[in-house]
């Protein structure tokens, strides 16, 4: 097991947000967290990255207790793609090189540059290397941010709604990149998602979050019309179209 979450509880001052969260993610697995707005998805992701500290419970990364690690040590193990990010006056190469920060002491070594170059190559973005971020499209920018997280060489990759604001083609490209990274790098990937169809298309496991607790957790078998209806409050049908499972609101 790469990531083990056990009995995690979190509350903002006195308002409880997460209660009794427990799940496990294997290497090479794409794990999606689903639920309504305000269900606590982003909060859960931030707890996994120690941006927020859970009041109780344990989170283990390869048997290491997250609460015992400092920020830099966390950053060497976990990559995090935030929902919001800013694009300063940086070139694509510099932006991805920033992912090496947790590993860099003073200056970037040739090895750091090589890792960045390789990541850009794998994502087919070499041509953009010296372009400035503020000249890129939304889809390109999202790929840069993912490339940065991959250059971090994490064991667990966390993504907060990586496909919101992207067009259809870019949604697919981004998730393909993430899926491929999980398999090839043999890392655990946890993705907060809104789009159930995309989740069912790409994810291996699903966690349905409702009001800060786990409603259901498991593989394709939990994505039933009944479960989705009670989590989202919308009647749906789950059908297969050209062999691909799709969710249709009724």
């Amino acid at each position, binding site marked *: 097991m790469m990531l083990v979450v056990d009995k995690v509880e979190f509350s903002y001052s006195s308002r409880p947000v997460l209660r009794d969260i427990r799940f496990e993610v294997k290497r090479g697995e794409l794990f999606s967290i689903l639920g309504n707005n305000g269900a606590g998805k982003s909060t859960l992701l931030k707890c996994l990255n120690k941006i927020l500290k859970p009041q109780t419970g344990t989170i283990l990364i390869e048997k290491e207790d997250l609460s015992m690690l400092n920020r830099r040590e966390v*950053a060497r193990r976990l990559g995090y793609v935030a929902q919001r990010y*800013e694009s300063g006056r940086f*070139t694509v190469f510099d932006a991805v090189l920033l992912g090496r*920060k947790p590993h860099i002491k003073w200056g970037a070594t040739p090895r750091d540059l090589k890792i960045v170059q390789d990541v850009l190559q794998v994502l087919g973005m070499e041509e953009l290397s010296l372009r400035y971020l503020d000249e890129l499209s939304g889809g390109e920018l999202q790929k840069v941010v993912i490339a940065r997280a991959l250059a971090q060489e994490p064991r667990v990759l966390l993504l907060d709604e990586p496909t919101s604001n992207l067009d259809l083609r870019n949604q697919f490209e981004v998730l393909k990149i993430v899926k491929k990274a999980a398999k090839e790098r043999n890392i655990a990937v946890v993705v907060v998602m809104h789009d159930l169809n995309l989740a069912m298309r790409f994810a291996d496991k699903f966690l349905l979050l409702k009001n800060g607790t786990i409603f259901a957790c498991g593989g394709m078998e939990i994505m039933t019309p009944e479960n989705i209806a009670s989590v989202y409050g919308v009647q749906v049908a789950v059908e297969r179209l050209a062999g691909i499972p799709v969710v249709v609101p009724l």
Partner: protein
Amino acid sequence: MRHLAMENMPESYLRYTQRKVFIICLLFLLTILLGVYAINAGSAKLSPAQVLLTLLGKAEGHLNIIIWNIRLPRVLAAITAGAGLSVAGCVMQSILRNPLASPFTLGVSQGAAFGAAVAIIALGAGSTHSASADAVIINNPYLVTISAFVGAMVTTMVVLFLAQIKGVTPEAMVLAGVALSSLFSAATIILQYFASDVQVASIVFWTFGDIGRASWRDLEIMAVVTGAALIYFMANQWNYNALDSGEETAKGLGVDVEKIRMAGMFVASLVTSVAVSFLGIIGFIGLVSPHMMRRILGGDHRFLIPASSVMGGLLLLASDTLARTIISPVVLPVGAITSFMGAPLFLYLLSRGYSKR
């Protein structure tokens, strides 16, 4: 991991970074050349050869006095203060996520000026010698600096409070800066009622900054503090880069955002305080040079920090030389020149919606 050889390195990227280093070196060279010219220029006519001989210690009496006691400290003070104020502005812009930030626009300089005035007038760190413009001599530079630093830190704490707890917009933060600086200016004016005529004359001149006030001893303190701050900022270059990609991303990259922000503002205030306590308020340098360099070199702090400091030194030296020579022998306050340069840029940034390009 495969074996890595030098020829595998991304060459176009290396060329791109070398270009930045080249530009910084060029600016540095330009500063030295301008420095020699500035030592040359003035009411006492000197030739470049005389300047060179004097600097090598092979010249007769009156040249020695003019160059060593008047012109050289002035040139070095301009470079040091310009570098310090610019690097402070550069870092403030990054850690406050605010392109309009600088020691002057946030009122930190004015806070420092008030603190220094308190030390000079009320705490007796300065004394009156003659009736000329630079009549007030600072007897105790440490007391003045510490007092200026307290004034600067008070402003900084307010700014940090607004930025962190209240999460105000960049424009609102500058408005707060306006309020703070008029508060401190008013306090300084009230203080003047308790000062002698000569002190008042000097303080009025001082609120617009004057490079010629620095002695060798002041220069030493300024250089040590600015140098140490530069090293600190350079050591944190990756943290500032991470912050430029957003607060959450920075945290995900292992940056202790609150600590970096506190420490950065602390050091930036310290640099501002030494410059202000010895030279007075010099506006806009800390805003103009980082923006110029960000435009030319991009936002990468590995290059932006040294580039901003070199540019700041060059710009303040150029402004001071202009102020001395434009209607020679009258010496204009250098702050007037830098404001003419900076205020239009500031308005331009505001009108353009201050995107970080």
